[in-house]
C-alpha cells in the first residue's frame, strides 16, 4: 500500500491552506506531520482521508487515483485531539461499532475488540460508558476504535494533546508498537519536536501549507535542509545569528562573534549567512579546544531540577542555553558562553542549508 499526494493544493475562499504539495507514504510506516498551529496539518490529513477534496492535484492509493472517492469508500480511520465517542454505548460497543457497520462476523469483532482493549489497557473498563471514564481513558477508547478497524490509513491529529503529560509519555511509547501490528500507514500530527523524536519513523515538517522536508525523523532533526525546518524542529527554539563570510573568517555585523572558517565552512563562498545552533550546543563551560567564547547578558534562568535553561541576550538576539546542573544566574548578569563552530548549521541568504559540519560528525 502506498499513499501518494501529487501536486495537491487546497484553497478555501481565496486562502491557500495547502500549496502544491507532493508526498508519498509507504505501507507499514509511521509518519509524523510536525508544524505549528495553522501550518496545515489538519487540512492535509483531511485531504489524505478524503474528508475534503483538493482544489487541484491528485491523491493515489496503491497507484489508483482516489481523488474524488469519498471517505466512507476508503479504508481510513481518524482520531482527533477532541476525542469523540458514542456517549450511550459501552466502551466495548464504541470499539466494535465500525466493525459492526462493516458487517463483520461477531466472533471476529469480539476477538479484535479484546485484543486492542488489552493493548490500550481498557479491558477492565469495557462495560463502562464514556461518561464514567477519565479523559485519558476516553481518548484511549477513541484510539482503540480506530485501531480495531485495521484501516489501511490511520490518521491521528494531535491525539495526545489534551492528555496529561505522563499519560502522553506512556501512550507515545506504546503507539508505535501497537501500530506496527496493523501494517497500515500511520500519520501522526503534532506541534512538538520531542514528540516527533520519541515516535521516530519519518517526519514531514510543515510550514504555511508546504512540506519543507520529509525524511527519517532523526535525520531531519540533525540535518534540517532550511532555517524554516530547523525552527519547526527545535524546542527550545534554535539560536540564530546573522554572519558574513569574508575569506577565512565569519563574523557578526558588530564583530561580537568571530570564528575561523575551517572544514566544511571554509569551502563556502563569501557572503551573508545565518548561523543556527541548538540550545544544548551553547555552553557555560568550555567544551573543547575549538570553542569560541562570547559574552552575553542573562535575561532569565529556568531550572528543571537536573538542567537549567539560561536565556541570554547577545548582539540583539535572544538565545537559550540548555546546560547540565542547577545554575541560578541573576538577571542582568554578564556571563561568558561558549559556542562550537563544529556544531553549527549554516543557512544561506535564501534560508537553505549551506553547511552542517555537526550533522556529519554525528551521523
Amino acid at each position: 500500500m502506498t499513499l501518494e499526494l501529487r501536486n495537491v493544493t487546497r484553497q478555501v475562499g481565496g486562502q491557500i491552506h495547502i500549496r502544491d504539495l507532493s508526498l508519498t507514504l509507504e505501507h507499514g510506516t509511521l509518519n509524523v506531520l510536525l508544524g505549528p498551529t495553522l501550518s496545515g496539518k489538519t487540512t492535509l490529513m483531511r485531504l489524505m482521508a478524503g474528508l475534503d477534496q483538493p482544489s487541484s492535484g491528485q491523491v493515489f492509493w496503491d497507484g489508483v487515483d482516489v481523488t474524488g472517492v469519498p471517505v466512507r469508500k476508503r479504508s481510513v480511520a481518524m482520531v482527533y485531539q477532541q476525542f469523540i465517542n458514542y456517549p450511550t454505548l459501552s466502551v466495548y460497543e464504541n470499539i466494535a461499532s465500525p466493525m459492526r457497520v462493516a458487517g463483520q462476523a461477531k466472533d471476529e469483532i469480539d476477538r479484535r475488540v479484546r485484543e486492542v482493549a488489552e493493548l490500550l489497557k481498557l479491558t477492565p473498563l469495557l462495560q463502562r460508558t464514556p461518561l464514567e471514564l477519565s479523559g485519558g481513558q476516553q481518548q484511549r477508547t477513541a484510539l482503540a476504535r480506530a485501531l480495531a478497524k485495521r484501516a489501511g490509513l490511520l490518521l491521528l491529529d494531535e491525539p495526545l494533546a489534551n492528555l496529561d503529560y505522563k499519560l502522553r509519555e506512556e501512550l507515545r511509547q506504546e503507539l508505535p508498537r501497537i501500530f506496527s501490528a496493523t501494517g497500515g500507514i500511520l500519520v501522526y500530527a503534532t506541534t512538538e519536536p520531542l514528540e516527533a523524536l520519541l515516535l521516530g519513523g519519518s517526519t514531514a515538517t510543515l510550514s504555511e501549507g508546504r512540506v519543507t522536508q520529509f525524511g527519517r525523523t532523526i535525520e531531519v532533526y540533525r540535518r534540517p535542509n532550511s532555517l524554516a525546518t530547523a525552527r519547526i524542529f527545535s524546542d527550545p527554539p534554535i539560536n540564530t545569528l546573522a554572519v558574513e563570510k569574508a575569506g577565512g573568517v565569519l563574523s557578526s555585523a558588530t564583530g561580537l562573534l568571530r570564528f575561523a572558517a575551517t572544514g566544511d565552512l571554509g569551502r563556502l563562498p563569501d557572503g551573508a549567512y545565518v548561523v543556527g545552533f541548538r540550545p544544548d550546543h551553547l555552553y557555560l563551560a568550555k567544551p573543547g579546544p575549538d570553542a569560541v567564547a562570547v559574552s552575553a547578558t542573562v535575561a532569565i534562568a529556568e531550572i528543571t531540577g537536573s538542567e537549567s535553561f539560561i536565556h541570554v541576550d547577545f548582539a540583539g538576539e535572544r538565545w537559550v542555553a540548555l546546560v547540565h546542573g542547577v545554575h541560578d544566574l541573576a538577571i542582568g548578569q554578564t556571563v561568558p558562553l561558549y559556542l562550537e563552530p563544529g556544531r553549527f548549521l549554516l543557512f544561506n541568504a535564501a534560508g537553505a542549508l549551506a553547511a552542517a559540519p555537526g550533522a556529519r560528525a554525528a551521523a
Partner: protein
Amino acid sequence: MARIHLDGVAHSYLAAPQGPQDFAVKRLDHVWEDGGAYALLGPSGCGKTTLLNIISGLITPSQGHLLFDGADVTALPTAARNIAQVFQFPVIYDTMTVGENLAFPLRNRHVAGAEVAKRVAEVAQMLDLAPILKKKARGLTADVKQKISLGRGLVRPDVAAILFDEPLTVIDPHLKWMLRSKLKELHRQLKLTMIYVTHDQTEALTFADKVVVMYEGEVVQIGTPEELFERPAHTFVGYFIGSPGMNVAPVQVEGNRARLANLEAGGQQISLGRAYPGIAAGARTELGIRPEYVRIGRNGAGLSARVVKVDDVGRYRIVRVDIAGHIFNAITAEEARIDGDRVNVLLDPANIHIYADSRRVEGEPSRAGAA
C-alpha cells in the same frame, strides 16, 4: 501581596465523607510566602484545581481555615479576596481594544483615569503589547489573546495573589517558551505571590521557586526543582518528574545491599552504600534511581541486562534495558553508541533511593548495616 496560610484545610465533595478516600484534598497545612512563585503540579484528578478553587474562594473547604496575612478569609467570596486569576483559555472581550481589555479590571474598581493609563502602559510594555493597544481583540491569535489575559491578571498592583490555571495549554511550543520566561521575569521584577497550576512538569519546574506535588488529594512533596529531582520523597514524585521518570523496582534490602525482587538469592546484588534499618517489617520496599544515573557498560562490573529499545531523541538517547524482568531506562549522551544485545548496567549508589510503602527512607552509613 499576601502570605497565604492553609490551616488544616481539607475538602470533600460528599456531604458526609466516610474516610480519607472521600476527600478530594486531604488535610493540608501549608504557607505560601508573600512574593513566592509556586507551582501546583499533579495529574488530572489529583485535587490541584480543587485546592486552587479553595484559595480563590470558588469552593469553601469542608474543614480548616484559609488566612491571608493572618486574616481569616475562609467565608469570603472570590470578589472580596482581592485575587487575580488567569485561566486555561483567554478570557477577554472581543469587542474591546487590547488597551480597554487591560484597563477593565481597574475601571471595574473605579481606579482614577491617570492611574489606569499608567498601569496599562506599564503592563503593555512588559508583555510587548504596546504596539497593538488600539487594536480590537477580535481576530488576534490565541497566544496574543492569552498574553492579554496575563496582562489583565498583572494590571492591578494591589492583589493578594495571582492564580494561574494551566495558562499555557493552548499555546504553541515556541511561544510557550517566550511567555513562560516572560512570566518568570515579571515575577522577579514585581515580587508578586504567584500560584501556577499545571500538569506539565517543565512548566512547573521552570516557573516555580517551590513546587507542590499533589497525588490522590495529598501533597506528597514540597520542594525546589532540584530537591524534587535529586531526592523524590515519594515514588510518585520520582515517576511524575523527569522524562522518562525515575526507575522504580521492587527489592529486598539486606544490610547495605539490595536484590531485585525476582533475582534469586546469591544472584546479582546492588550495592547501596547505606543500610536501611528504619524500614518497618512487612513494608513494600522499592529501589528508585533516575535514568540520568543509570550507566550502561560493555563489560566488567554491574548487573547483566538485555537491551530492549534505544530511542534517539537528538540530544540524548533513551536506552531501555531488561534486568531480570525489570525494565530500566537509562539516559546516555548524544554521541554514545549502544551495540549489541547484552550490556552491563551500573547503578550509582549515591543516587539510589530506597522506598518503603512508596515513601523515601533515609539511609544510614553502611558500617551500621554491615554489622
